[in-house]
């Protein structure tokens, strides 16, 4: 009896090992990719931030020199501030916009396909093309936007939207409504909203709930996991994707008003050839992403509702 049992456990163990081996065989492309393109670069960035390396020269260990330089540089603090303001506001604004569009689309039965197409349209325009078209639309003297407002109000309306240190913010936030990530969030919200059980709304109506109460007590809890997902993806997108729209649109200007960290990093490494200092900025950007993600997950415990 005991021998057969021993054989069985031996076979089971053998099967388990074989299972694990084949699992890791399937994982091997990712393991190589992770080591080469994620793990090694992360270690490299942290190490190089303590050196004065350039493209040609691997440099020497300079301890905290780069960090000291960075923390004493008012340009860095401005860039960090701009990154925070830009990320937080653009996440909030694009999420609200995407959510409202999704609500409208789900309420509208007729011509639904048409409206979804038109609302998703800006998302398929490449960000470079979008940036250039908005440069034309918001141009001070020849732009159609100022001209239209001017003709409606009958006054000479010519703010310089993209070249004024204050006005550039609302302008850029408005342009963020046209990005791919906004369109993507709209579609994700749509499918989330469709899955909210109808009975819940009916029950709420029977209880005499107002539209706002229905939103607060039915819609919001049901879509909260999707809202969390969108918030996390949008904030990573804001740290990362800001480059693709701001680089062609403002190049960080006017006077550094939109100079987010990813633009500073690009300039330091690829134009000024300061690898060590650039890696310092990368470390900050990396930590910022960690902070964003952890804050959101920590806060989400308070407001995200999971069914089980």
């Amino acid at each position: 009896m005991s021998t057969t049992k021993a054989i069985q456990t031996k076979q089971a163990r053998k099967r388990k090992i074989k299972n694990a081996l084949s699992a890791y065989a399937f994982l091997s492309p990712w393991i190589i990719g992770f080591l080469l393109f994620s793990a090694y670069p992360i270690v490299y960035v942290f190490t190089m931030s303590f050196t004065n390396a350039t493209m040609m020269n691997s440099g020497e260990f300079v301890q905290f020199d780069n960090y000291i330089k960075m923390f004493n540089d008012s340009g860095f603090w401005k860039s960090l501030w701009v990154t925070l303001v830009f990320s937080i506001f653009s996440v909030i604004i694009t999420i609200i916009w995407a959510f409202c569009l999704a609500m409208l689309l789900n309420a509208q039965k007729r011509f639904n396909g048409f409206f979804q197409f038109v609302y998703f349209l800006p998302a398929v325009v490449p960000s470079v093309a979008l940036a250039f078209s908005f440069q034309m639309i918001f141009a001070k003297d020849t732009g159609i936007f100022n001209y239209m407002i001017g003709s409606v109000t009958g006054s000479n309306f010519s703010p310089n939207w993209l070249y004024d240190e204050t006005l550039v913010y609302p302008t850029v936030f408005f342009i963020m409504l046209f990005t791919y990530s906004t369109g993507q969030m709209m579609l994700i919200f749509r499918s989330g909203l469709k899955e909210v059980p109808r009975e819940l709304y009916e029950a709420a109506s029977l209880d005499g709930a107002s539209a706002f109460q229905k939103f607060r007590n039915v819609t919001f809890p049901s879509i909260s996991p999707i809202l969390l997902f969108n918030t996390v993806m949008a904030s990573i997108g804001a740290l990362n994707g800001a480059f693709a729209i701001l680089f062609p649109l403002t190049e960080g200007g006017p006077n550094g008003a939109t100079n987010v960290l990813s633009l500073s990093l690009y300039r330091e490494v690829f134009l000024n050839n300061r690898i060590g200092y650039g890696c310092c900025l990368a470390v900050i950007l990396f930590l910022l992403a960690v902070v964003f993600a952890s804050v959101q997950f920590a806060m989400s415990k308070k407001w995200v509702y999971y069914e089980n």
Partner: protein
Amino acid sequence: MRTRHAIHASSVVRVIVMLFIAMITIFPFLWIFSSSLKTNLEISQFPPTLLPKDPQWEAFGKLLTGDLFWQFLRNTLLLIIGNTVGTLISSSFVAYPLARLNFPGKNLVFSIIVATMMVPGITLITPQYMMFNNFGWLDTLLPMIVPAFFAYPYNVFLFRQFFRSVPKDLDEAAYIDGCGRVGMLFRILLPLSRPVFITIGILSAVFWWNELTQPLIYVNSDTWKPLTVALMTRFKFFDEGPNTVTWNYLMAVSALMILPPIALYLSASRYLVEGIKTSGMKG
């Protein structure tokens, strides 16, 4: 009666609001097409015109009969094909054990994959640039194609979500029939997963059609630039020297770059929408 009127009124307001938003979202798109048919002079004149006074097809003609546009388009297409093929093969392979097998370290591997999804790509671009420089790959498309064959975390995540939704009983049945792990993947899971392959293929194509950051950093010469980078550099000052922005060419190229994704949306919106939804799924 009164409530019916109220409902009617609110839906009229809704339609008006929706049409207004539609005008906003469609405007940049119309502006690109309209400007692409203007002369550069008309673009820089006041007052701006909504439609071109005398539509000029010259910019399109010059672009489509010259070599440059096609060369940049070829590079964009190479990026799309390389990445899509690479990521479909590698990411589906990697996602399979995560969705269907039990093995030690599974949760750890999955957590690392989710964590790497959240690292902003630009933070790691410096070491990657140095590495590709050592490989002698700068100013080629290789730095953007080869990594695709080593599984992108985000696509692994999408494949895993889909594979988990395929009933597990099928695996057991196949195992009893003497199917190995590889056989199970190829005979059971992959044939059932056609939609997710199309979806990830489309998302990857759209991504690389729009991607600016990586080619901007890795490619310098016109030979390997994709359309996005060429738009910012070569087409911005097309034929009037380095100080005059050739807006009409910029807009003509932009117009040409909008058409394929629109065609894709119109023909495959089902897969695109489905894929984006899958990425929002919890679990």
